[in-house]
């Protein structure tokens, strides 16, 4: 499925939400907690909610990347699940915030 920049994503298994800020170079499936995410406001698949937070759980304001395809997702709402793309866990992109300069 195409994921242009600006596509909104919502987890089917937790409260996590995100937005695509860099599109992937190859089509694939974006998941949270191992279940396909609802893309661009489509209905989420029915799935059981996660009981416990996963490793790499979605944290608001953090950016997550797939090194293979360049996909970059900004988490806009926190959740217990972790993002993955075609089964590859997305990794946290560390950004060193700048002291306020403008």
């Amino acid at each position, binding site marked *: 499925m195409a994921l*242009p*920049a*600006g596509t*909104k994503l919502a987890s089917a298994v937790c409260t996590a*939400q995100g*937005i695509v*800020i*860099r599109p992937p170079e190859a089509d694939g499936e974006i998941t949270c907690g191992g279940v396909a995410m609802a893309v661009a406001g489509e209905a989420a698949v029915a799935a059981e909610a996660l009981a416990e937070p996963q490793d790499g759980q979605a944290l*608001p*304001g*953090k*950016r997550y990347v797939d090194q293979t395809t360049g996909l970059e997702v*900004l988490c*806009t*709402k926190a959740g217990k699940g972790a993002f993955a793309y075609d089964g590859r866990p997305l990794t946290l992109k560390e*950004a*060193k*915030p*700048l*002291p*306020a*300069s*403008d």
Partner: protein
Amino acid sequence: MHTHLLLEMAADADPDRVLVGSRPHGMTLVGLLNAARRGAAFLDARAGATVTYAGLNGPCFAVAVFASSIAGRPFTPLNYRLPDADLRRLLARSAPATAICDAEMISRLDGVEGVELISVEDFARICEGEGEAPALPDADQDVAVVLFTSGTTSEPKAAILRHGNLTSYVLSTIEFLGADPEDATLVSVPPYHIAGISAVLTSIYSGRRMVQLPAFTPEDWVDAVVAERITHAMVVPTMLGRILDVLDARGITLPTLRALSYGGGRMPVAVIERAMDLMPAVDFVNAYGLTETSSTISVLDPESHRAARASADPAVRRRLSSVGLPLPVVELEIRDEAGEQVASGTVGEVWVRGDQISGEYAGKKAIRDDGWFPTNDAGWLDAEGYLFVEGRLDDVIVRGGENISPSEVEDVLRLHTAVQDVAVLGVPDQEWGERIVAAVVAPGGVAEEELRSLVRAKLRSTRVPEQIFFYESLPYNETGKLLRRHLRSEITAGLDQRVGDVLAI
């Protein structure tokens, strides 16, 4: 991604946060989004391919930035302080355009071919109410902003910033909604300055409430900080000196202020030291950047300010006049005229590379195919990688084959207590190619020879100004840039006149 997505994200995550203006009646994130969407629908229905903005800073400016982005129209803020003829010429260069302008500007701008005018008030009215989510344009390479450079000698260049340049700067340097709900930033740079654009984008994304000063006066600035409980602000160096004078005169400090950043010109060390001593709790940040680099590329952070101020080591102390370290997302090199990287301590041209660097003008790319951009600024790195910017490359004085940076001599002259302001310039010289002259503001008076011996004692004899001219004040533009070329041609013309007088006798 397009810049409006920054607003979409923030408005989605925290819709009711007041972002523009005073609490509690200021514009919220979702209010700003709605206004921008309605503004975009209006702009979309006009013939104008670009959107220009000529007016004071205000909420409408922030709306117009995002409305243009949603409508997929390049946004071009114009310097409303320019003489009518110049302003109309820039407007004509932007045509076909929809021009949003302050009501009193309409008579000045009316009748330019291909330009439809709308007042800020009318635009604000159109933007009231609920907006609909439109189908959004999105391409990194779309032109987001066009800014005309100040162009002190020639026709202004139109610097082009693409959406990808601006959003990569924001995403890689700002923490999403990382601001405290109580934070407020005071914006006093004008809308047509790159810092005015980046202030809007970074405030939205960090969720920091933005208070806009329509036009800068030091009194208004201080009043606004007090009244709005301002925590953050950005100023240009000339503003800071005047602000400190007001604080001294009123005998107050600014207890709510936590962070003060400055940039856009060289900060005299005496001024920043005075500011640090008056407000020791404030975090000072020196930010260096150009229009063509989407704002900041190098930062002297608060810890480095304090370390430099407290240090007995001259190399560390000196960093107070540096612009700090390059951002982690920007590569920076100092290169000589042949394009070779030079050793630390050697002056050369500052080159940068990174996603935020546009290095592009209408009809001309200054950025190289490998992504490196020559800034035309002269600078050097110290042993720890701190960047010292010495001014524009064109301003470097070449005397008898030796490169002399004006700022080096200026810094020494400023040490003299009688000197309030100074500019060091090169003027044509038959024997040396160029010779050094100084323009000095010293209301109390000072002997020329005293200044010369000071330079001779601190620097080499080749650095000593051969002539010193005394001025009541030096010419600056409204964003605090010294008009060196103006000053140089005035001095050169005066010298020619004198030579003419001598010959006539």
